[in-house]
């Protein structure tokens, strides 16, 4: 019998573990190794250079720029997405009429939920190509077209969107426009998530609050929001990962994948450019390792900050 168990366990694990080791673990380990060399990627020549690549990261102007752009997305994407999603969930769940049974959800909330979720099932590439047309820098684009029609934007002075490196609040405009897409595509999903969490809060909690004379705003800010803390913090961590992954939008939408004039450069775009255009694989791997360390530290930090005692109900 014991023997049978060992054979069964090995048999079931062999293929998945093998595949995972070969296509995921091994590349990661190799990347860590290459990051200590000056390997160019196409030749077999490589020299051990120690931590040189890592030291170079600190003095690299482009990396510094990309780093701050990543930080920008890391803060703004979760912040705006969660704020909007919470607001929508709030309207959806407490915007309805009140009666003896308490405060109702808005009429048609089921339909709204279905619609708001649409962008979540579309791929980032579809969204990027679509928004490329929406953001066109002439009257043929959806936004410019509308603004020209109502006269807010002159025919020969359209908004340039992806080609606009001018800073707005200290951050290149192109990044704000990319942020808008991220919020547009993410808000619905998190609204559904928050909505489900709100509905799992027992009704008698609300009834007690209403008996105590709390209105809907009070109820929301004093009861619903604190009880949603767990869900919101999980959402924050997830959105953090998504924010690090804005590369699809940058890749498809911005001029020369990180432009104009490096205004939309992020870690991933610099890494890919360094590896596959400049042919500096060793250096690119060092960037990757740095990004990985950054990600893990960040995830740990976020989990630490948001951890708090759970409220059971």
């Amino acid at each position, binding site marked *: 019998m014991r023997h049978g*168990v060992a054979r069964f366990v090995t048999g079931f694990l062999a293929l998945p573990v093998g595949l995972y080791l070969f296509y995921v673990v091994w590349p*990661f380990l190799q990347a860590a190794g290459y990051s200590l060399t000056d390997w160019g*990627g196409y030749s077999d020549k490589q020299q051990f250079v120690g931590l040189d690549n890592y030291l170079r990261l600190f003095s690299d102007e482009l990396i510094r720029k990309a780093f701050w752009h990543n930080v920008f997305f890391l803060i703004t994407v979760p912040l705006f997405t969660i704020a909007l999603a919470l607001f929508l969930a709030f309207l959806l769940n407490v915007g309805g009429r009140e009666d*003896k049974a308490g405060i109702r959800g808005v009429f048609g909330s089921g339909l709204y939920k279905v619609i708001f*979720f649409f962008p979540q*099932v579309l791929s980032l590439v*579809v969204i990027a190509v*679509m928004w*490329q047309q929406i953001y066109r820098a002439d009257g043929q684009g959806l936004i410019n077209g509308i603004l020209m029609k109502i006269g807010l934007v002159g025919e020969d002075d359209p908004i340039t969107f992806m080609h606009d490196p001018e800073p707005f609040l200290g951050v290149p405009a192109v990044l704000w426009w990319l942020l808008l897409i991220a919020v547009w595509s993410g808000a619905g999903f998190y609204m559904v998530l928050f909505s489900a969490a709100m509905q799992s809060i027992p009704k008698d909690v609300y009834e007690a609050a209403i008996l105590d004379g709390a209105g809907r705003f009070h109820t929301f800010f004093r009861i619903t929001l604190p009880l949603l803390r767990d869900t919101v913090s999980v959402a924050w961590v997830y959105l953090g990962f998504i924010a690090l992954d804005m590369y699809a939008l940058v890749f498809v939408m911005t001029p020369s994948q990180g432009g104009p004039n490096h205004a939309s450069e992020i870690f991933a775009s610099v890494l890919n450019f360094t590896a596959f255009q400049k042919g500096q694989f060793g250096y690119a791997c060092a960037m*990757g390792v740095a990004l990985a360390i950054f990600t893990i530290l960040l995830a740990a930090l976020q989990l630490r900050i948001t951890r708090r005692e759970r409220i059971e109900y």
Partner: protein
Amino acid sequence: MSTVTHTPGGLAGPDQTPPPTRTPASRAALGGGRAGARFFNGFSHLFLAVWAIMVVYPLLWVVMSALKTDAEVIRKPLSLIPERLQWDNFARAWTEGQIGSFFLNTVLVLTGSVFLTMLLGSMAAYVLARYEFRGNRLIYYMFLSGLTLPIYLAAVPLFKGVYNTGVVLPFLGPNSHFMLILVYVAWSLSFTVFFMHSFFRTLPNAIAEAGMVDGASHSRLFFSVMLPMARPGLISIGIFNVLGQWNQWYLPTLLMQSVAGEPKNQVISQGLIELSVNQGYRSDWSGLFAGVTMAMLPVLIVYIVFQRQVQSGLTAGVGK
């Protein structure tokens, strides 16, 4: 889960009390007053409707532009009603834009990769969740670590590894469907194992023991008892994987580049990127819109049909 919708006539579900008249006590308790509530209700509708339009309008605009002529796209970019429906835009994107073959490639790859991901993922998760052996934790954490590491870090060696394998075994080299299937499976295992692991843990022991007493082998127990019991979890993670792999763009862009003369085995995401570049040069805007529409509609339709499962499937993934 209870939904908080209500019907226009004030008729509520059986669990709610319908009378719309209020006692003085409750009116005092509700604060804001009737007018305030009505205003808030109106505001909610307005804001929700505006956001709904912001989501639907661009999608509708893309679909409708796909049915216009190029001249119309340029002349009347905003109109949602084409003068005549130009179905041949779709035909052009399908054949000339090669969306058709990209579509076929994606379906081919996904059929294999989703099936294998589910099979291998639940096999590994099951063994890790329910059997004690040395190295169990190590393997579990190895799978888990893949969730935090950015894919870009592995890009360079992965590309090199696939290229080198291709020299010896061409069917595992770049631009091969089979290779892409295996890569998708490997990269989807982390989350699948993580998700199914927690699922298998919750299944009761008694049934497994009863099965063993009846003389079922370990693998028989898995396939005919435990796997069927894990169905809700399988559906969730299945939806997650189908959408995730359908939407995958970085791995194929990295690994599915056809060198001159080779057949184009690209998947739909790459096809769209290519289309957006090519049709841009040719100013074939309606063809581009048709391509986007074709990539978008199947997923949207599947979602609308199975919206309940898709929503709960995807949100369950975050909740864990």
